[in-house]
């Protein structure tokens, strides 16, 4: 448990990381370093996108599954680690 906390803390302190969000399957944030409205917005939107991405992957090959999703935009990069029970989201500005 302490290791998890440590790792989360470390992730947050890495260069360029803007925010870290952990939401459960219902979209309720468990851990977040951003404000609530942003968190909820990210969680909701990314949940749908993850569903779609997973559907795409599995449609092509049902034995496959989505493990990671990265969206690189002009300003930052959003990294999503999806799971059945939760979703881990990190927003980073890599060029900082």
């Amino acid at each position: 448990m302490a290791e998890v906390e440590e790792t989360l803390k470390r992730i947050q302190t890495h260069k360029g990381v803007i925010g870290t969000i952990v939401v459960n399957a219902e979209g309720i944030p468990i851990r977040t370093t951003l404000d609530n409205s942003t968190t909820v917005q990210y969680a909701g939107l990314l949940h749908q996108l993850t569903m779609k991405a997973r559907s795409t992957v599995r449609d092509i090959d049902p034995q496959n599954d989505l493990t990671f999703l990265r969206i690189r935009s002009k300003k930052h990069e959003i990294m999503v680690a999806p799971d059945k029970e939760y979703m881990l989201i990190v927003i980073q500005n890599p060029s900082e």
Partner: protein
Amino acid sequence: LFNTLAAVRVKLNTMLLYSRSSRAMNISTSGILRLNRSATYARSINASVSRKSFCLAADSKILEKSSVQTPKHTIQVLDENGKDVTPRPVYQPDPAAVQSKHSKIFASDTSGGTMSDFYSTTYQTTTNASFAGAFTRSLFGSGSVSIGSQSIMESMSEEIEDPSSKRDNSISLSDVQVKREEVKELIQEEMLDDMVDLYLVESDTLCLLDMPAISVSVDSMEAESVKERNSRYTELCKNRTGNDKYMGRSMQTFNGASKTKEVQSEAITMADAATIANNWDMYDSFCSAGQGEVDLSTDTDKASIAEMIHQNHGPTRTMERTMSVISSSTIVSSSSSRMEMEPFVVPSESKPDPELILQSEEFQQHLFVMERIILENIYQPKLAAYRQLPTLEGMVLLEESSLDEEGPPTPALERLWSFSCELTTGRNVSSMAWNKRNPDLLAVGYGQFAFKDQKPGLVCCWSLKNPSWPERIFTCQSGVTALDFSASSASMLAVGMHDGTIATYNVQSREKTPVIDSSDCVHKHTSPVWQVRWINHERALSGEDKGEALISVSADGRISKWFLRKDLMKLKRTRNDRFKRQVGEKERKSEALISRQAPGLCFDFHPTDSNIYLAGTEEGHIHKCSCSYNEQFLETYQAHKGPLYRITWSPFCSDVFLSCSSDWTIQLWRQDLFTPVLGFMSTQRAVYDVMWSPKWATVFGAVNEGRMEIWDLGASILDPTIVNPASPGVKLTSLLFATETDCVLVGDSDGQVSVYQLKNFTAGEGTQVGTLEDIIGSTLASQL
């Protein structure tokens, strides 16, 4: 017709119900005949029909009321022999029963005395019969209603009764029998001897249907009157039109008032439900259904069904899966209905606790991956440079440099990154080792060299993918001075410590404790272990185990070989070299000899012949030893004036080795010569580490206190080709070449392991072995 004595099959209920209509029943003695259905009873019963002929003895009610009749009024017919052949009435109901069961339908039929009453009752019977009979035939619906009680009875009873046309005469018989007995008694008592006159009388004709003709023949008597009437009627009709006597009047019937009635029902709400069956959705259902089928076929126990359903409820698609489960079941309906019940209960999963999520394995794994990805974002250019992949920055730089520079670009070192974290700051990097199997894994040992400021040592395993946090952290009780990864079991890491302990760690597991520790050994080292190495012996010597063994050299003057035996680390003193002081050389006789053995600081095995190894001592001697001889050195090379910190054979030329010591020099030796071939000195600092480059035979790197140098003997034997000064206040302590890329790792006393890339550096094509040998040869030639 009724003349014929017919009996009717009756049932008790119907009989009693229509007891009124039983007047005309006659029970025949001859047999039971079915009454003709079409028999009708004349409505307009002529007055000729007398009551007498009706044998109304059966109906007690009527008989009671009627003054005319007597209950036992019967015509008795006796034949010659006196037998009573009186035609029995078709039906004689039980008087008691009849009385008790007079139906309400005929409630008004109490008076039956007069004929009119009779008729009325019959009328009523008819109507009532028709009324009561829901299944009234057209028989009753037609104008001519058969009021034949018999027919009624029969038809009614036919309807009501079992269509098997049971003839139940039991009751009637019983009734009859009652009567008959009474009758018989009368006979027996009185009239045994009398002569009786019998009068056969023809019963009256019962007219059942009388349809009077509406036309009269011309010849008949009534013709005249009929004609007259007809003519009168036509006149009447003619007169009618304009006559005042006749008025046409219209009538309006009251229409029934219509009433609107409204009914309102709840609107049927429609909900659209849609689902998309994806490829993977079907695959999921199929997989889980297949799993369910297997379970069902093997075990029909309800408990197991419940378990299976609970297993299936994890993923979201419970409904489809349960449907498929149900459809594929072959269980008895009772259990399958139970199954249908359960899946609908199950979908209410318990929400996983947030804490559980955070503690789960998958979450840790995801965090781990996420961290690496974040770092990759940060370090991507550096790592790409490490891997010698072209980066965008590099491309830009190259273009610029090709335009600007005229001559060949000078070789330089570019600092890529450094492995360090807050755990390691302030610690002295004492040794570094690459993993033999995974060249991206680096083990770094942290420990102080000097005796005075000892603190617990640290071993960190760093991965290239995460330069900011080590993958494994092992704390040791004393400073770490030596490290080596095993080649045979790539996850074994041998650690030598300042207090003489040797421990092996398994870096694959997450345990923080060493696998084996030598602190319990009898012959363990008592002084700092300065070097450990795993050596693979190809040739087994006199019962020793073939395979890899751990060799260590320590300051107590011993080189020991360790074997790992089943969780125990045993020192096998198969080879026990003691460094003898060369008493003659140094005048230390006067001093009290603390020990006769010189501390050994480094050693290196011959790259091809694992029997031969070189060992360097604190006195500056290099001894060439063999594994087979434990007591004596083969050779001794003396040149250095200070403790030897490193000896290393050249990986390309098997005769050449390098040595560095604290006397500011690096010496290049050839195995057969007892004086060094070449000596290198650049600064007046102790050289802590030297290492041949794995790529070029003429290149080696050296680290002294103040700076890091890369020497290229092909370029110059006097000066290092690349010099990289250390940060002020930091001493560089160890050096390691990366095996696959052009990078050098330098560890310093501040706990940082910096990775430098050799830019624009090449010693030439190939390994330059020939060049090295040429250099050596030319040097030797020049010395002569």
